[in-house]
């Protein structure tokens, strides 16, 4: 992990198993909004082996992990990891995920940090390696031989002389009573037989036959149903409530009010729905929202928290002497997680105890938040993860968890809260942030880049609640807790090392701080100044947060520069890169896509027929957390403005691959989600409220689309640490599509989404 300082390093400092999460010195509000993802001390001590691994008297292995599976394949991959390190078959492993009574505190499952946290030399991997060595040592004692002559296989420890003893006999269901050994040896990737193999998803059979329990399927004895009543406008406050207005609905247990958080609890779900619709609440009027039409202008004028990420201090001078200066501005909208299922949670708060069944990706932080908002002792609160609808960030799961806790607390009975679709989309989730990004580059006479300056503005409000900020999600804020806010501040000179966790620094810049180049590129004259601006809406870490927005701007702008220099976009990129892993994925994707070497745009489009083009984009995710390049091929119909991607080729290097089948699934999903976000997705609002509240007003690609061909080139490097793989591919999709549209038509699109209207207008303006 040489290049740059990733989110992980930034928050936890590398190497240490247990590091406390400190609120004060964090500079990047986006890093804060991600929540902590490292391993923390709790009542389940992560330094003790028994916290992670248990061996049953039958020799079956139970693993306990603080990283959960919400569809990204972590369940299968972590089961493989344990099976591999303990030398047992997959069916001998049982994995318990994220339950504050059972599993260690690993903060939040997010930020492409589960693989780095649990598959390198700490966390679950290190515990599993320790357990294997411990079993071998126990066998050595029992057989009175050196552990060196023993090997573990199939749940037995075998000696060279033919003797063998089973794990069950060695441990006989007792605790191992050892510390996790930081020096325990992981099995070398070359010897893996389960890890690194394309193991099919272990839960798919239960999923397709509907035997899998989602949080939506939790039923408790005496459980009630609740629905929330959200404000009609953003910023509206409760003036009065007429509880009598729901008297005619049967089965009503209670109308619950906590500051501006309003909900109803009833015997049956239908009654809760009816009561929520009929409850008369007088609300104050909301606050005026900045008009959507000039939102990107608006955010530039707001007070901002500024950070200079790199500044070589010679940029202005280079620009004044450049042969050519090119400038562009890119814009990216608010987007929704828009999970298919509206979020749900079940809480059982009685007396001084609370249990919460939740799809939160942060069970321990949520436990602390629930204890705080309900005034309970931490040890009396248990949060149990159960899968919700696939999320990839911060959908309504955390908000609805607090809703359920508040309502169950009010009635002292178990309550299930199901958000409505509108609640989910307007009052449930934390949106992916809008951003506007100015780019400026200086070229010499040969068209080579001699200076690059980038200035992104990105909005932010709230984020993951972490351990102490319930107001970071909507229900917490409605109940009266403050969200984390941007503090306007001028930037000071960058110090320490490069902080490129949001990919604000383009891959082609040297990323130099204090005289050391941490970046992946060659351009030494560089200046990147970021502005974090207070958002009118709650924001959160939607898959590839800001990394996607910034990469869209960098990779399209790089394409503009290459076009200006009349250079082939691949060759031009390679000339300005120096990180071999990034260069390798670029070369690999060009080869696999049979990239035609020539500048863009393609010559001789007749402006009438369907235009065909190809575009490339690449990134070192977060500077060093995965390397990816993609080639997109598109068809553009100029008369309708319709863009169809026909093929994607992706080359990806995330270090040693835990499960190539799972990785392919993640890449395919990431590419298509990226395509949907690029072509149609945008949150909309009017003067006082969100107007994209369902699937007719928020545009997702459905199952009827003609799916592009997707080809993956997986580069498996076993000599480096494992990085995340869930957010890499999506990061480059919008840029690759934009570059392909330019290649096809000569028209550059600088604002996502590339709606038909926008594409059509851009192409016809371009011709005029």
């Amino acid at each position, binding site marked *: 992990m040489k290049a740059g300082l990733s989110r992980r390093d930034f928050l936890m400092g590398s190497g240490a198993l247990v590091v406390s999460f400190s609120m004060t010195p964090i500079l990047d509000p986006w890093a804060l909004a991600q929540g902590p993802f490292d391993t923390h001390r709790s009542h389940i001590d992560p330094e003790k082996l028994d916290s992670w691994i248990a061996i049953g008297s039958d020799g079956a292995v139970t693993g306990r992990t603080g990283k959960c599976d919400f*569809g*990204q*394949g972590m369940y299968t991959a972590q089961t493989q990891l344990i099976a591999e390190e303990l030398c047992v078959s997959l069916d001998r492993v049982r994995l318990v995920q994220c339950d504050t009574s059972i599993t260690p505190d690993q903060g939040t499952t997010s930020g492409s940090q589960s693989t780095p946290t649990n598959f390198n030399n700490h966390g679950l991997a290190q515990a599993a390696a320790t357990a294997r060595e411990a079993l071998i040592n126990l066998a050595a004692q029992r057989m009175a031989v050196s552990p060196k002559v023993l090997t573990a296989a199939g749940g037995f420890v075998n000696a060279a002389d033919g003797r063998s003893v089973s794990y069950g006999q060695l441990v006989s269901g007792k605790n191992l009573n050892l510390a996790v050994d930081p020096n325990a040896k992981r099995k070398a990737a070359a010897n893996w037989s389960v890890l690194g193999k394309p193991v*099919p*998803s272990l*839960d*798919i*059979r*239960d*999923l*397709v*036959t*509907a*035997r*899998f*329990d*989602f949080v*939506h*399927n939790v*039923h408790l004895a005496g459980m009630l*149903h609740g629905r929330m009543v959200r404000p009609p406008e953003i910023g509206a406050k409760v003036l009065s409530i007429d509880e009598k207005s729901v008297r005619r609905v*049967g089965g009503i247990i209670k109308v619950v009010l906590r500051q501006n958080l309003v909900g109803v609890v009833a015997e*049956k*779900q*239908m*009654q809760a729905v009816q009561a929520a619709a009929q409850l008369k609440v007088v609300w104050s009027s909301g606050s005026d929202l900045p008009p959507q039409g000039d939102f990107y202008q608006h955010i530039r004028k707001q007070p901002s928290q500024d950070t200079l990420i790199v500044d070589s201090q010679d940029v202005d001078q280079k620009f004044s002497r450049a042969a050519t200066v090119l400038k562009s501005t890119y814009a990216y909208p608010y987007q929704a997680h*828009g*999970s*298919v*299922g*509206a979020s*749900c949670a079940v809480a059982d708060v009685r007396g001084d105890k609370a249990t919460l069944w939740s799809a939160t990706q942060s069970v321990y932080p949520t436990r602390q938040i629930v204890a705080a908002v309900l005034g309970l002792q931490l040890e009396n609160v248990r949060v149990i993860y159960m*899968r*919700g*609808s*696939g*999320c990839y960030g911060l959908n309504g799961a955390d908000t609805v968890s607090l809703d359920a806790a508040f309502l169950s607390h009010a009635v002292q009975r178990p309550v299930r809260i*199901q958000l*409505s*679709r509108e609640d989910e989309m307007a009052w449930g989730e934390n949106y992916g942030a809008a951003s506007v990004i100015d780019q400026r580059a200086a070229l010499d006479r040969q068209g080579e880049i001699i200076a690059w300056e980038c200035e992104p503005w990105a909005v932010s409000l709230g984020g993951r609640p972490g351990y102490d900020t319930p107001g970071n999600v909507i229900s917490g804020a409605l109940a009266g807790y403050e969200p984390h806010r941007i503090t306007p501040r001028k930037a000071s000179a960058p110090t320490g090392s490069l902080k490129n966790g949001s990919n604000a620094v383009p891959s082609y810049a040297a990323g130099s701080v204090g005289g050391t180049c941490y970046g992946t590129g060659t351009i030494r004259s560089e200046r990147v100044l970021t502005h974090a601006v207070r958002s009118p809406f709650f924001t959160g870490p939607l898959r590839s947060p800001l990394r996607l927005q910034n990469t869209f701007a960098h990779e399209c702008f790089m394409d503009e520069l290459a076009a200006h220099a009349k250079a082939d976009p691949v060759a031009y990129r390679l000339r300005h890169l120096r990180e071999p892993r990034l260069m390798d994925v670029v070369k690999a994707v060009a080869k696999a896509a049979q990239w035609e070497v020539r500048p863009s745009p393609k010559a001789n489009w007749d402006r009438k027929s369907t235009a065909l083009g190809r575009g490339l984009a690449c990134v070192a995710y977060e500077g060093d957390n995965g390397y990816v390049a993609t080639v997109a091929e598109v068809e553009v119909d100029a008369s309708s403005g319709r863009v169809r991607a026909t093929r994607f080729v992706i080359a990806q290097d995330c270090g040693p691959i835990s499960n190539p*089948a799972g990785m392919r*699934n993640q890449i*395919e*999903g*990431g*590419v*298509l*989600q990226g395509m949907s976000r690029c072509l149609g997705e945008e949150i909309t609002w009017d003067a006082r409220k969100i107007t994209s509240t*369902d*699937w*007719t007003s928020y545009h*997702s*690609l*459905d*199952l*009827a*689309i*003609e*799916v592009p061909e*997707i080809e993956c080139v997986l580069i498996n490097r076993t000599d480096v640490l494992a990085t995340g793989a869930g957010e890499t591919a999506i990061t480059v999709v919008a840029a690759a599509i934009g570059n392909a549209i330019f290649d096809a038509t000569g028209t550059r699109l600088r604002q996502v989404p590339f709606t038909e209207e926008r594409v059509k207008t851009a192409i016809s303006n371009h011709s005029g």
Partner: protein
Amino acid sequence: MTAVSLKVNGAVHAVAVAPETPLLYVLTDELHLRGPKFGCGLAQCGACTVLIDGGPVRSCITPVSAVKSAEIITLDGLGTPEKPHPIQQAFIDEQAAQCGFCLSGVILTAKSFLDRNPRASDDEIRSALAGLLCRCFAHARMFKAIQRYAKMVRS
């Protein structure tokens, strides 16, 4: 509350609910079925899909009183983990899911369409899948799984 009798996955169930209650709430809250799910409540996503007399119906907007004596099949009743229905097996073979929340809509809609239109072209299959959402975007594998099932019904 009215007593309603429903034929679900081959068994008859008597439940006491308000007649306007959406079928979905009866299936999930009263019968504790896991297949149909609340996605939108607006007939816009398909997560709540069940088969009624073989045809796909969005149970989130279907009042339970409208079902009468019709035969309801949910994803739970299509096959078992030990003996999945061929279309479920096709989804397993193609590894066509991520979170799996959307599967009732995708599997039941495709099954019903192909059972009734075994010779459907890929384009016709696509049209039949309109208005179904998968926000994990497992589209590519799902379509392959459906094509695999299409081959089976044809032969």
